[in-house]
């Protein structure tokens, strides 16, 4: 692996000033949570940071803390902790399930929730170092290449899919992300954190090079809510989703009062389906309605040459997930 200097800041202010200093010196820095994605990128010469900023010792960001306005999740909480935390399991099930489907025990033990959200794309061209848009190049090789795993929504000019399992779950839970930067901190809804390639092709979210995702805030748990994360893979473990759905339904006396449905691995960002949610609110979720919702979910899909199979798969996954949650 190419050499670099590792630094171990102790608090978020220190991270921000470190990043600022490195940038001012004309050098590059990469943040490392668990490092499970970053180190592979460095070994494959996809990034070549002069400085690796190890976030593991940051004060106070390793905790899951319930409070009156909801739950605060430190960015350094591991996926293992998230998937087994009693409060997350019982009240925010979709998130515990999503974290529990990531990769393997070894990766969940080190992988952090912030790192999971900020991981780079796993498009095979990007990971092989093809000079694509994501590496500052001028094309997306998947357009006329092997695009089996690429986007059916929101693509262009790059057709990557957002790889994170926790991101769709967090968007479905209406989480908010706290970001620290040189001008202090800001909090943005998860739905405004991710950016489409047509807005900004070289990165997947709004973070600048001098910013760090420090916390995730979940709204208070509500009564009568059921949620789940369902992930389709091309084998049974250890891999990113071919397709996934995060669904959160509030059902009172058989009637759906609120719905949030977000798809994973179909678009360059977690793909929210507000038009499908509107079909469900105020209704009893019957098999027929779930079928209509499945069809509506894919009505605007634009497949590439080899990923058309994702359309019936998405339709069925949405239908089945709604039936099982409502049932």
């Amino acid at each position, binding site marked *: 692996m190419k*050499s670099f200097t*590792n630094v171990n800041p102790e608090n978020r202010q220190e991270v921000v000033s470190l990043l600022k200093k490195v940038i001012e010196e004309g050098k590059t820095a990469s943040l490392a949570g668990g490092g*499970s994605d970053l180190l592979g990128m460095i*070994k494959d010469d996809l990034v070549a940071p002069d400085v690796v900023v190890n976030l593991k010792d940051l004060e106070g960001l390793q905790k899951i803390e319930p409070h009156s306005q909801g739950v605060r999740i430190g960015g350094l909480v591991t996926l293992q902790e998230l998937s087994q935390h009693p409060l997350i399991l019982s009240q925010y099930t979709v998130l515990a399930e999503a974290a529990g489907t990531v990769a393997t*025990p070894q*990766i969940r033990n080190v992988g952090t929730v912030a790192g999971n959200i900020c991981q780079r794309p796993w498009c*095979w061209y990007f990971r092989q170092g093809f000079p694509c848009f994501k590496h500052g190049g001028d094309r997306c090789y998947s357009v006329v290449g*092997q695009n089996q795993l690429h986007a059916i929504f929101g693509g262009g000019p790059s057709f990557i899919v957002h790889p994170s399992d926790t991101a769709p779950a967090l968007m479905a839970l209406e989480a908010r992300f706290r970001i620290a930067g040189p001008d202090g901190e800001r909090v943005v809804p998860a739905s405004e954190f991710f950016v489409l390639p047509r807005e900004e092709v070289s990165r997947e979210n709004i973070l600048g090079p001098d910013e760090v995702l420090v916390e995730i805030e979940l709204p208070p748990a509500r009564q009568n809510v059921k949620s789940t994360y369902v992930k389709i893979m091309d084998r049974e473990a250890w891999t990113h989703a071919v397709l996934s759905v995060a669904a959160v339904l509030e059902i009172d006396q058989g009637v759906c009062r609120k719905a949030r449905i977000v798809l994973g691995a179909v678009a360059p960002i977690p793909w929210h389906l507000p038009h499908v949610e509107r079909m469900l609110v105020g209704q009893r979720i019957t098999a027929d309605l779930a079928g209509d919702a499945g069809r509506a979910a894919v009505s605007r899909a634009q497949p590439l040459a080899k990923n058309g199979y994702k359309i019936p798969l998405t339709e069925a996954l949405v239908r089945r997930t709604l039936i099982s949650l409502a049932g």
Partner: protein
Amino acid sequence: MKPISRRSFLERSGTGMAAAAAIPALEVPTFQSQPQPAEERGREVHLKVNGKDHRVKVEDHWTLVEVLRDHLGLTGTRVGCDRGECGACTVLLDGKSLYACSYLAVWADGKEISTVEGLAEGDQLDPLQEAFIEHDGPQCGFCTSGQLMSAKALLNQNPNPTEEEARQALAGNICRCSNFNRYLEAVLATSGKGSSRG
């Protein structure tokens, strides 16, 4: 046409596990024109490995598995893919399993590490090792130390796992000889759940 998976794509285009594993063996060693004396580079870290204290001078970009194998001589921990994709490098850090190929040695400063060398006490094998032999777990044996450490992490936390829990716990360890079922049997037998094939 044969369907393409992420893995077969990478294999065809020349990286992937098989190729990545083969590269180190072919690599010609490179020497710096003026090698710096080791003492002037890197920083000292304190690793407690299998109960024994080690102070080692490491460079920031060295992985934990490099230090264990190349600097402490603990070659029971293997390197297959060097990318978090095979599990051969599994060790325990403060009791939790991780891929030592995907973790920097400097991040392990002050931590307790357990490797396969720490399982047996003298000639007395760990019950897991006994069961691995009994159930013919190891074939070529390359993945075995990683399988043992994943199993150890599981049984430390959950001495009586269900079959599903044991499967999940071993899911991060690939066996190219495909002896997954025997490893699973051995783990369940150790936990007192499985049928011993006596």
